């Protein structure tokens, strides 16, 4: 369904992605894991067509979205949903208006039907009574659930999630994780989740892709990842501070750095 091939991206002299290949299969949950600053968000922006890679292609069905520009991306974007890390709800609109926005923009449906659809989407995320509130009046977890309802507004084939549980308490995190699982199981939506929450991935993912230094370090089912003999994979999934993944992000030697005027 979504196939990334040889994705490369540099910011100046810094290589962020250095030849990413992976496939996210239809009606499955794919988790993309990686440490902070490891290029996950860059990869996600490339997957949704918000950023062009320096090299490589991203195929949605057989359509290469890296070749599309401007309104050419619209047919693809109408088939996907995106849950942003901070929700990215429009603060000047109410919860109901946020969810109805893509429906009003892209369908000829009248107001009464749109209202019913908004209630259905809110019911999916358990927030039916919050339609008239503004995003600023909701907690972080509620905002993410509303953002998820908005992402589902046009009944997308694929939903992308950017760090869906970061900054949330364990209970709300579990609620969001269960929602992702239910969306996939009940509605058959393909889910692509970018996160560093390993346990969450182990619970519900059909496939896990681990990024390290801009490349795919490992991919497979949660069981395969757990059983990996690669010390970097093991350090990443156990969260151990000691191991091949260095705590220091600087590439220069500390002693040399101190001696430089």
């Amino acid at each position, binding site marked *: 369904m979504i196939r990334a091939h040889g994705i490369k991206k540099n910011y100046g002299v810094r290589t962020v992605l250095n030849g990413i290949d992976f496939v996210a299969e239809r009606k499955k949950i794919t988790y993309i894991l990686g440490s902070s600053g490891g290029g996950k968000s860059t990869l996600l922006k490339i997957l*949704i067509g*918000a950023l062009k890679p320096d090299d490589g292609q991203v195929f949605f069905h057989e359509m290469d979205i890296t070749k599309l520009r401007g*309104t050419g*991306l*619209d047919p693809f*974007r*109408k088939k*996907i949903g*995106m849950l*942003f*890390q*901070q929700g*990215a*709800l*429009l*603060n000047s609109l109410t919860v109901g208006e946020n969810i109805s*926005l*893509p429906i*009003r*923009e*892209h369908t*000829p449906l009248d107001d009464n039907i749109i209202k019913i659809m908004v209630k259905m989407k809110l019911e999916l995320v358990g927030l039916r009574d919050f339609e008239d509130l503004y995003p600023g009046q909701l907690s972080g977890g509620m905002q993410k659930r509303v953002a998820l309802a*908005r992402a589902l507004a*046009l009944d997308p084939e694929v939903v992308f999630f950017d760090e869906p549980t970061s900054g949330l308490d364990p209970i709300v995190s579990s609620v969001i994780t269960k929602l992702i699982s239910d969306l996939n199981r009940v509605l058959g939506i393909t889910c692509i989740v970018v996160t560093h929450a390993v346990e969450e991935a182990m619970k519900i993912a059909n496939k896990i892709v681990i990024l390290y230094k801009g490349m795919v370090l490992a991919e497979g089912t949660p069981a395969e990842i757990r059983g990996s003999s690669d010390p970097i994979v093991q350090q990443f999934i156990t969260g151990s501070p000691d191991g091949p993944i260095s705590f220091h992000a600087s590439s220069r030697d500390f002693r040399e750095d101190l001696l430089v005027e």
Partner: protein
Amino acid sequence: MKNFVGYLGRAFITFLQDLSSLYYLFRETVFQSFVLITDRKKLSQARLLTQIDEIGTQSLPLVLAVAGLLGVAMTVLISFQLKEVGGYSYIPGLVAVAIFREMGPLITALIVAGRVGAAFTARIGTMKVSEEILALETMAINPVRFLVVQRFIGLLFSLPALTTLASFMAVFGGFLFGSTRLGIRPDTYVRETLDVLTFTDVYSGVIKAGVFAVVIVMVGCYRGLVVEGGAEEVGRATMLSVVSSTLAIIVLDTVMTGAFYG
């Protein structure tokens, strides 16, 4: 010296890039405005009246207060000079022409640039850094149509109207001072004003206001749309927005005054 030349070169290149981006934004805004006007459903959702209210009605008290005081101040200054030669009868005409041709459009545009243009940048910049604009794009919603067009149309209606009202208010301020403090008879003041003021004086001010509206919207929205980073960058962009639009308004005002009356 080498650094200074380098700095100037970079600043000039940035200026050209900004100018080119502003042109593309303007072109897209005009195109999307036609799309909006021809689509009755989208037009009804566009909240144009809300924009006109926010931009125009809410700016009205400040604009009228400043314009009234400006009219009084100009009359005081002109009367001070004309007193020496006994030319009080020239005051109404001088004040009216100066206000309708120059001061009314200029002062109104500068007030609106500071009040409304800065708000455009701050609001759109905040939306940019909180990924709301990326969210719009991901939903296949054109951010220019959603964020810029309604402001563009709103200000294109509001600023000429505000300018005309401000000019009348300034002339009224001059009338009050002239008739109460300088001893000019009210009917003489009105007659002298109408004798001198031409239709060209009024419509040149309206045309200027239309051009200033385009400048304020384009600069305000552009600065917001290109913000990268966080709150600090939004603040910097807002400051840059006010500085750029103020400069552009003054330069264009000089050019247009030259074109109309030079």
